[in-house]
């Protein structure tokens, strides 16, 4: 207020919240993993996330979950039960309603000039790579997308990944990054535990790979929209918001600093 000189061209554009969606399916995949599919019109891109909520006041916070798959009418989310919120999500049945607020975040970059792309995921971090594989393959039919999936115990969704990529390598109980040769690719995209992504970054540096590595970070979030600074991460360019500036950053931005 204070004087109230209107800035030119300013117009509030409400993005609409309270987006109630209908659950189509919520399939247990074992090891606490679930694949939730819901009816929801969207423009979500690979690497973006939604704030999921299927309860009233408690837990207080909504849960940020990556988009696993999307078409214009439906959204799918792969999640793992780790606490109260995800346990409540796991209880959802077809026909139940869920609030889907998003899509948030920058998502994975377009890679129109990359002929060979590696997608490297660990655990529930494989979630955003499915839509990434589909998208990269679709946007550039000449490119080859190889997928590396790491699991602690039992692999999931391997057949689904095989259907949308050139090759799927699976590692159980070890280091999936051991399987990746960064020199064989024009770009690498990774999502998973921080030590895994850091190891991949260091491998790229050690073999002097020219290919850029993009990493999708996970952090505890409160608002999910860039207002609260709970999810700040340190980068070469100073503090950045994982929810709004990310979750996708260049590996060098986040791991190339002290």
């Amino acid at each position, binding site marked *: 207020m204070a004087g109230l*000189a209107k800035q030119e061209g300013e117009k509030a554009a*409400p993005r609409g919240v309270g987006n109630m969606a209908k659950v189509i399916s919520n399939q247990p995949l074992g090891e606490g993993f679930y694949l939730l599919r819901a009816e929801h019109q969207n423009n979500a891109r690979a690497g973006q996330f939604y704030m999921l909520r299927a309860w009233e006041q*408690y*837990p*207080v916070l909504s849960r940020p979950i990556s988009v696993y798959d999307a078409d214009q009418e439906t959204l799918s989310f792969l999640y793992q039960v780790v606490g109260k919120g995800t346990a409540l999500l796991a209880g959802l049945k077809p026909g139940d309603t869920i609030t889907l607020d998003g899509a948030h975040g920058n998502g994975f970059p377009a890679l129109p000039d990359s002929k060979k792309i590696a997608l490297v995921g660990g655990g529930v971090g494989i979630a955003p790579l499915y839509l990434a594989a589909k998208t990269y393959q679709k946007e550039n039919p000449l490119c080859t997308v190889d997928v590396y999936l790491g699991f602690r115990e039992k692999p999931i969704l391997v057949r689904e990944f095989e259907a949308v990529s050139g090759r799927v390598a699976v590692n159980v109980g070890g280091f999936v990054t051991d399987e990746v040769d960064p020199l064989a690719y024009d770009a690498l995209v990774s999502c998973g535990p921080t030590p895994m992504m850091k190891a991949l970054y260091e491998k790229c540096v050690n073999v002097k790979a020219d290919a850029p590595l993009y990493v999708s970070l996970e952090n505890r979030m409160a608002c999910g929209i860039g*207002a*609260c*600074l709970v999810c700040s991460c340190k980068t070469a360019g100073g503090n950045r918001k994982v929810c709004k500036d990310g979750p996708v950053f260049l590996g060098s931005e986040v791991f190339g600093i002290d």
Partner: protein
Amino acid sequence: MTDRQKNIPMDGRLQTEFAGIPFKNPVVLASGTCGFGRELNEYFDIERLGGLCSKGLLEHPHGGNEGIRIWETASGIMNSVGLENPGVDAFVEKELDWINSKDVVNIVNLGGHSLEGYLAGMEKLNQVDLDILELNISCPNVKSGGMNFGTETEVARSIVREIRRICRHKLVVKLSPNAQDIVSLAKMCEEEGADGVSLVNTFLAMAIDIKKKAPVFANTYAGLSGPAIKPIALRMVHQVSKALSIPVMGIGGITTWQDAVEFIMAGAKIVQIGTATFMKPDISMDIIDGLDGYLRENGCRNIEEIRGIV
């Protein structure tokens, strides 16, 4: 002043005056939960709000705390953001004009790590236009300054006095519920010439990671907010409202319009919505609509009819 009241909605039932400043309704977003308003403006027209409190500013940019910054607890959250902020200069350069262009009361929250820091930040903010300066002597998440200035009345008095001496804006002091005696702290603010007080900031709290056998937070303690603290915050707002003649902004776990009615009946002129925005970004709109509906159904022509009635 009248040019500020372009959008008085809902027959003006919710119009509130706080220390001479007109608010179109008593609902304000609390510092630290709404950035500088831009993100939430994508969800709703922030001009529907009564006011907006900026993220807590320090004289200089600050990166905030290391480690985990948020932890959920029964009916609440603990945060340890630690006043990450761009500094007063960057705020003035990049954010202030935008907020001032909006028909919403612009409340700028100022913190400090030392008396000198507070005063230097204040000098800079004296050079610009804003509606209310909210002096933060209650942040529990900084090692020096913050709440350390705001738990003992006589320690707090020195900083409120110094700021009041130079502050050319309306001054509201944001109080900590961790104060030794919140009523005496609030009275001191009135004695020193504050135009109002806002309470409460977060409660000093703790969580332990039993797997790591260590505190969850790098700073050991963090600030508890949300529905869990509402009854205690309400009690404090009630006590302070009864004891003061300057107006009070009530804060603490307000999540529904019914919560807001309680705080207003307890004496609050303004209610600040904080943690609830994390449940639903436009929850403040529901609270405004609910407040108006309550007044209408109860035949109240103005919100003053229920203010402080308990």
